[in-house]
């Protein structure tokens, strides 16, 4: 258990270093991304050109306003992707629980949902600040934001459901079933900006510049490391609780 904690702390520090490095790389080495174009032809910039009123001219080139806000891509997107990924892992554990009926799978699934919820909250916070900077509003009911918000509510509902069932095995089964059904929102939320017109940018697509890709991947690895660390810490805590239960049982017997 002690080892688990040590590894977790090391992973968090490493993740922090990697993401911070990516953060600075995004300012210093990354080239400005050209999805859509920003030339004077007035071509609509799908990524940034949300507020044309504040377009500014420099050297005969028209820019969309929120160039700097774009840097959020290097931590907002990794966190969001990590939340999707961790929730997918939770759903896989839920399926395994339903097949094997072993408590350990239920615990893992629950911890994964919890980790995913933390990442979802982080995505929300960073996202809200970005929409404020980029769109000028704190929140907009737009397909990606809406489906992602629903995903967050589903995770909260997962814990509400768990708390309202007293029998341990029934709780685990219900939670697993709900986790699987709730997971269906993950592909919906992920794909929706690619399927229907949405003001949420689709930045990550083929043809990305290497200078952009490197910090992005660094941040992604860092975030996954942090995610795994959080999961491990919670697992260590869960182990400790279990040991506590066993000792209590021993004392009473």
């Amino acid at each position, binding site marked *: 258990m002690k080892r688990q*904690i040590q590894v977790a702390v090391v992973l*968090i520090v490493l993740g*922090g270093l990697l993401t911070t490095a990516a*953060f600075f790389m995004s*300012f*210093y*080495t*990354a*080239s*400005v991304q050209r999805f859509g174009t920003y030339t004077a032809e007035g071509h609509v910039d799908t990524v940034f050109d949300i507020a044309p009123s504040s377009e*500014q001219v*420099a*050297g005969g080139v028209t*820019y969309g*306003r*929120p*160039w*700097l*806000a774009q*840097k*959020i891509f290097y*931590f*907002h997107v990794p*966190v969001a992707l990590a939340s999707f990924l961790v929730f997918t892992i939770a759903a896989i554990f839920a399926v395994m629980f339903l097949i094997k009926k072993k408590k350990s799978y239920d615990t893992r699934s629950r911890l994964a949902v919890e980790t995913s919820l*933390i990442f979802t*909250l*982080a995505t929300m*916070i*960073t996202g809200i*600040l*970005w929409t*404020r*900077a*980029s769109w000028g509003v704190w929140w907009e009911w737009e397909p990606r934001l809406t489906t992602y918000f629903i995903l967050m509510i589903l995770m909260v509902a997962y814990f509400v459901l768990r708390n309202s069932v007293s029998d341990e095995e029934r709780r685990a089964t219900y939670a697993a079933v709900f986790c699987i059904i709730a997971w269906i929102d993950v592909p919906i939320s992920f794909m929706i900006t690619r399927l229907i017109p949405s003001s949420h940018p689709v930045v990550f697509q083929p043809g990305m510049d290497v*200078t952009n890709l490197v910090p992005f991947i660094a941040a992604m690895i860092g975030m996954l490391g*942090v995610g795994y*660390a*959080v999961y491990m*810490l*919670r697992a*260590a*805590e869960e182990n*400790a*609780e279990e*040991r*506590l239960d066993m*000792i*209590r049982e*021993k*004392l009473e017997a």
Partner: protein
Amino acid sequence: MELIHPTNTELYALVLHDAPFVIAAYGLLWLMFCGYVTFILVRLVKTDKQIALLEDAVAKKG
């Protein structure tokens, strides 16, 4: 390789307006992670204490 991409230098001069939001977002992100991790660690230490206490009791009993 120059440290700052030429396009970037030009652009940053224009749009420092968004900087507070981006930096706040990054800061809040890590504040949240750190807060959560500390929270878990505090709880862990508490549980450890409880375990030690109960194990003593078991040892005395046995």
